[in-house]
């Protein structure tokens, strides 16, 4: 029968090594508060810029969705009366890609135009009502993209008796395309800034390793393995990454707080409740990513730097 070894002493030793490394890392951070603060600020700014931009664009994307640009106005030919408009409305409402059709008869259209334009007296001079009946078409939920909305509008435009079709989809499509491009650009910029964070970690570690060269040499001399030497640096990198990300999120929150008032005022003009948001889930994911990125960058940097140090 094979004898099973008790894993607890080994586990206790490992935990003790981590406790030591943690203490050492905190001591190192305390030993140079100002340089560490500058490092945190550099990482915070590097993370805050793409994060803030991405979140702001995301919020603007939401705003685009709230403009209700999905309604399509179908203008009938002037010779079509309200009864013809209702018949056409019924046939359009029967389509699976249409949720609702509202008929604005010619008289109602004129009344609304009179009220909105203030041209009442001028309109009285006209011999006939010049305005056509209008069908306001609200597409079904399955029409969920600017492209599908444009296709539906084109089909409605080809129906008999329809003079013209007007929707907001054209400019919404442009705005969406612009937002998508900007969001992709922000992802590219975020990748570059992530690289910048990794470089900051590398430079900081390089300086630290050089400063603590003697300590590393002596540690190796008395039997330290690479893991022992590496551990405090990795904890340092983890704290720096997490601290920088926290500070970066703080900067984003401050910037959003400053921009919130003016942007709400602009959004109110479009009857839309725009809000710059920093979701908790996103913040946690950013913290996790920043911590992981810093530790990975530190690991790679140490693999390069420690190889050159021999006791």
């Amino acid at each position: 029968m094979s004898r099973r070894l008790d894993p607890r002493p080994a586990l206790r030793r490992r935990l003790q090594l981590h406790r030591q490394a943690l203490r050492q890392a905190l001591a190192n951070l305390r030993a140079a508060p100002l340089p560490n603060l500058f490092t945190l600020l550099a990482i915070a700014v590097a993370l805050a810029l793409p994060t803030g931009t991405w979140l702001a664009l995301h919020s603007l994307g939401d705003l685009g969705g709230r403009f209700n640009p999905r309604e399509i106005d179908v203008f009938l030919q002037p010779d079509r009366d309200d009864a013809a408009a209702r018949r056409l409305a019924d046939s359009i409402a029967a389509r699976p890609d249409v949720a609702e059709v509202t008929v604005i008869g010619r008289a109602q259209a004129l009344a609304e135009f009179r009220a909105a334009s203030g041209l009442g007296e001028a309109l009285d001079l006209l011999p006939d009502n010049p305005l056509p009946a209008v069908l306001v078409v609200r597409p079904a939920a399955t029409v969920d993209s600017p492209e599908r909305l444009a296709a539906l509008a084109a089909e409605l435009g080809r129906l008999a008796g329809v003079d013209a079709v007007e929707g907001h989809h054209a400019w919404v499509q442009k705005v969406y395309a612009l937002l998508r491009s900007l969001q992709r650009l922000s992802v590219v910029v975020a990748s570059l800034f992530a690289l910048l964070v990794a470089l900051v970690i590398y430079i900081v570690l390089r300086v630290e390793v050089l400063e603590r060269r003697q300590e590393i040499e002596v540690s190796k001399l008395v039997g330290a393995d690479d893991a022992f030497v590496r551990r405090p640096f990795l904890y340092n990198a983890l704290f720096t990454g997490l601290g920088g990300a926290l500070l970066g999120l703080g900067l984003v929150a401050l910037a959003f707080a400053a921009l919130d008032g003016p942007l709400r005022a602009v959004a109110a003009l479009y009857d839309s409740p725009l809000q710059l948001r920093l979701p908790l889930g996103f913040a946690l994911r950013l913290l996790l990513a920043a911590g992981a990125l810093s530790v990975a960058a530190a690991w790679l940097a140490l693999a390069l730097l420690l190889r050159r140090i021999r006791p």
Partner: protein
Amino acid sequence: MIECRHLGKRYPGGHEALLDINLSVARGELAFLTGHSGAGKSTLLKLIALLERPTRGSLRVNGHEVARLPAAAVPGYRRHIGIIFQDHRLLADRNVFENVALPLRITGMAEPQVAKRVRAALDKVGLLGREDSRPAALSAGQQQRVGIARAIVNRPAILLADEPTGNLDPDLSREIMRLFLDFNRVGVTAIIATHDHALIDEFGHRRLHLEGGRLVEDRQP
């Protein structure tokens, strides 16, 4: 305990630091390694501590061939060897306790046990009570004793000392040498490289003399 057969070390660039060294140091033996600067004393100690790798021959320690020990196994091997240098190699930003505790902390030893062992090591070298002092606040002799405490705190089987009394006056040198004899008496194998012939004559022990990288004399006391 330590057995060298045709051991050699050639550095990159072609310098032959050690040539065909054949020697054997038994468990619990104390040997002085003598020779002029550049004779190969430090290189031999570095080979035994695996701070350098031999380029020729065999090096057996405690029955195991260590010349080609995998790199990952070297730290573990080094923990069984206490090394003392002329320049002490103490960490200036740590106090005496922290310096001596380093070899124990590397093994993940629990703190109460670390404290007990460190105090015992400092007691042996006569520095109990100076735990909180920084190395800069100590004399050269005291610094060397801290280095010795650090070397013995892990209870190594082998002690290697490279010119441990090089910077010390004769009285302090004798004091340090007596410490080595004390450790040797309890079974620690020790190899001490030194220039100090008077000290060797006074303490008498096996003397290994190197010249130009060769072992030219192996004199028993």
